[in-house]
């Protein structure tokens, strides 16, 4: 097992180096002078020269590349041109918001997806099955940003039940503690004895969670169903049934446990994707996370910020996928033998 983990970790190094290289050259070889693009047409020669030397653009490309790799390995992603803040700081400020949303969306998608998938598999070719699978197909075919707007239209504008965006009612004058607002809400609940903060944080989370979680929900429901159908065909399930084990117990005690193996992998991959794929959702719901920040950095032509942002997210993505892989091999030892 240790050997397997070490081997996977060793494979990570060339991938991460490749990611850094690709990110560097994507920006370095982009058409046009980056300094000119960042400062706009009205910048004078002096300003351009200063920014170029600040960014190291006056050095030869090979030297720039070496310097860049060195900096990234030291954990230095440079400074944002717009805010002059360290990019690592900008990212860590926004990370909790992104993680909070990705977690609630994954949770929503997993619970509902598994329940629906199991129901569909148990009642194969029934109306439950057909409507779940049709719903899943519609779910993966839907543009997320459109769903988000429709949800706002119905629940915020029409029914006036939920807020249209943000993380907390501004009138509560809330000062974040951990930056995970649900947790902060609970802390405040204990401290001040009122649930207002928690309720407000929860209300702000509902619509973005549903919008972001719909595609994973559809994928998880489909995976659970097909995996469950596969397992229910197995001999040990037939044996259990023949031995008179109650159907409920067969499904939930014996079959589900094995059927969930592939589902766990899918959930992990989806969580990784949600951390990065939240650009549209975060932008629509004014959710102050990394996705929205990258989008604004692109708009502001803040190349170091964009570079740092994608690098960070990709590292995160690769690491999560590795963890999922390792986790899968822990729960399913057959994989390791391959």
């Amino acid at each position: 097992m240790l050997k397997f983990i070490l081997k996977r970790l060793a494979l990570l190094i060339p991938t991460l180096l490749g990611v850094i290289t690709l990110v560097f050259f994507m920006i370095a070889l982009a058409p046009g002078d980056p300094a000119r693009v960042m400062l706009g047409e009205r910048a004078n020669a002096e300003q351009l020269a200063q920014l170029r030397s600040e960014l190291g653009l006056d050095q030869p490309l090979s030297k720039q590349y070496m310097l860049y790799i060195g900096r990234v390995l030291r954990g230095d992603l440079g400074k944002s041109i717009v805010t002059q803040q360290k990019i690592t700081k900008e990212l860590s400020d926004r990370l909790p918001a992104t993680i909070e949303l990705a977690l609630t969306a994954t949770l929503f998608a997993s619970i509902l997806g598994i329940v629906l998938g199991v129901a569909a598999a148990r009642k194969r070719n029934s109306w439950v099955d057909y409507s779940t699978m049709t719903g899943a197909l519609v779910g993966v075919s839907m543009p997320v940003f459109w769903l988000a707007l429709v949800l706002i239209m119905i629940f915020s504008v029409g029914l006036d039940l939920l807020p249209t965006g943000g993380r907390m009612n501004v009138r509560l004058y809330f000062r974040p503690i951990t930056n995970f607002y649900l947790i902060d809400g609970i802390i405040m609940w204990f401290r001040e004895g009122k649930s207002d903060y928690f309720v407000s944080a929860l209300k702000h989370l509902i619509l973005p969670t549903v919008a972001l979680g719909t595609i994973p929900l559809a994928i998880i429901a489909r995976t659970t169903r097909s995996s469950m159908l596969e397992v229910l065909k197995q001999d040990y399930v037939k044996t259990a049934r023949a031995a008179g084990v109650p159907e409920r117990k067969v499904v939930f005690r014996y079959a589900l446990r094995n059927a969930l193996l592939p589902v766990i992998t899918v959930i992990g991959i989806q969580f990784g994707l949600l951390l990065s794929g939240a650009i549209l959702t975060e932008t629509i719901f004014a959710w102050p996370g990394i996705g929205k920040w990258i989008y604004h950095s692109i708009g502001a032509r803040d190349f170091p910020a964009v570079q740092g942002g994608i690098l960070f997210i990709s590292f995160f993505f690769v690491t999560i996928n590795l963890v999922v892989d390792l986790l899968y091999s822990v729960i399913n030892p057959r994989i390791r033998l391959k």
Partner: protein
Amino acid sequence: MSDNMTKEIIEEEITPPAEPGFWKESWYQLTRNRAAMAGLIIISVFTLMAIFAPLAAPEDPLEQTIPARLTAPFTDGYILGTDDLGRDLLSRIIYGGRISLIIGVVSVSISLALGGVLGLVAGYFGGWVDRVIMRVIDIMLAFPYILLTIVIVAILGPSLMNAMVAIGISQMPRYARVLRASVMGEREQDYVLAERSLGTNNFELMFHTILPNALAPTMVQATLGVGEAILSSAGLSFLGLGAQPPTPEWGLMIASSKQFITSAWWVVTLPGIAILLAVLGFNLLGDGLRDILDPRLRD
């Protein structure tokens, strides 16, 4: 006996699996798959509307009738109503279909060309060639798809053409992987070995002998890919990184009318339903094709 004759005799005896009957049989199975046929019908309707857009659309999609702005559906002869500049929504959706189908087909062609060649070469030669190509593919897959697409467009500059290039590049790794896997499965088959023993060169073997037999899973991927490309380009346009106004692109139509969700539900809702239906069509057909063409699922 001349070499050529030997070749002909051997070719007659060893029939590759993908004879014309394979596609005929697949088509027959497709017509019996209800979901796939539903998908095919949806795609056909959109394709016909796209081709005959000038005839199908009641109005010019760009013509503004300011006094008739934000007219509700089924009033004053506007079947789907008008947008904030008084443009006929039905006409814009019909013309938008043209753009979306082109985006889907062009993006997938780009990924097929790039990813297909890489996958074919990697799967055919194996060894260090395979390792180098797959390493690059793995690195590309380390970037989440949506993010990679957005960054490429951001670098190239926002436009519909660049959006298609970006989607094409970002989707490319999947085709490389799928085709590589099926090429590796075919490489050691008898009909390939027979061709090779006759001295057929690598290029011929790759493109004429193996490719047609290894294409089925890639076609499934391509069908699903068109749907995903339509979704992605709508997303890019929504963010202002794809089509630019006044192009009647579905995603852009939603973006430019989102401030009217409080007063005019149709301007946001209807273009979204158009995207949903078009993507659904490709997903239905793709799933159906997978059931039929993917040998792993075939009993």
